[in-house]
């Protein structure tokens, strides 16, 4: 597995599942933070602005936790 990881890094070919998973953590963290500060659920634009991300990126990052390709992730980790 270490071999595969090195190959992925050297080649610059990071799997989507992996980088989106990192974004997913960021999005989740910020969402909770804003929820506490605002006392309500943030809007998509508020969250996007707070993260310096687009709405599109947030939608994609939110979905990754539950999609089937996370199976690959556990294989590569």
């Amino acid at each position, binding site marked *: 597995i270490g071999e595969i990881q090195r190959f992925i890094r050297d080649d610059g070919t990071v799997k989507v599942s992996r980088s989106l998973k990192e974004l997913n953590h960021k999005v989740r963290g910020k*969402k909770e933070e804003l929820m506490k500060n605002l006392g*309500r*659920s*943030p*809007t*998509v*634009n508020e*969250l996007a602005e707070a993260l310096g991300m687009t*709405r*599109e990126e*947030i*939608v*994609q990052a*939110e*979905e990754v936790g*539950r*999609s*089937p390709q996370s199976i690959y992730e556990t294989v590569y980790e």
Partner: protein
Amino acid sequence: MRNEMTLEFLSVSENESLARVAVAAFVSQMNPTMEELTDIKTVVSEAVTNAIIHGYEENPHQKVMLSCAIDGEQIEIIIKDEGKGISDIEEAKEPLFTSKPEWERSGMGFTIMENFMDKVDVTSDPDIGTTIRMMKQLTSTRALCN
């Protein structure tokens, strides 16, 4: 602003995620709260899963149709299959009712749709198919921005 889209996909469970993401991406231009967005994705999942599992009984060659229209703060989502249909709609809608108890399905799909959306219309005929039309008015953005 009015906008609309239609998505058609094969009745395989891999496409449930496609349906969720497409609706979320489309509806996100209305600036809903993250909570509203999650609710909308949940009802899309429930209706699409029903079409695949109950409507088409997992025949992967059939097609599920989804359409979404937005107008001001109003969202309309229609999910349609041409599968086996529902003979008793009232019974199907009852909380905990499921025709597949052996599958550990929750029987809560329709209850979730009715709770998360303002209005849910079910049209269904045996062997013709099922159409679920759901409406929701976003309230939070309006309350926040005006």
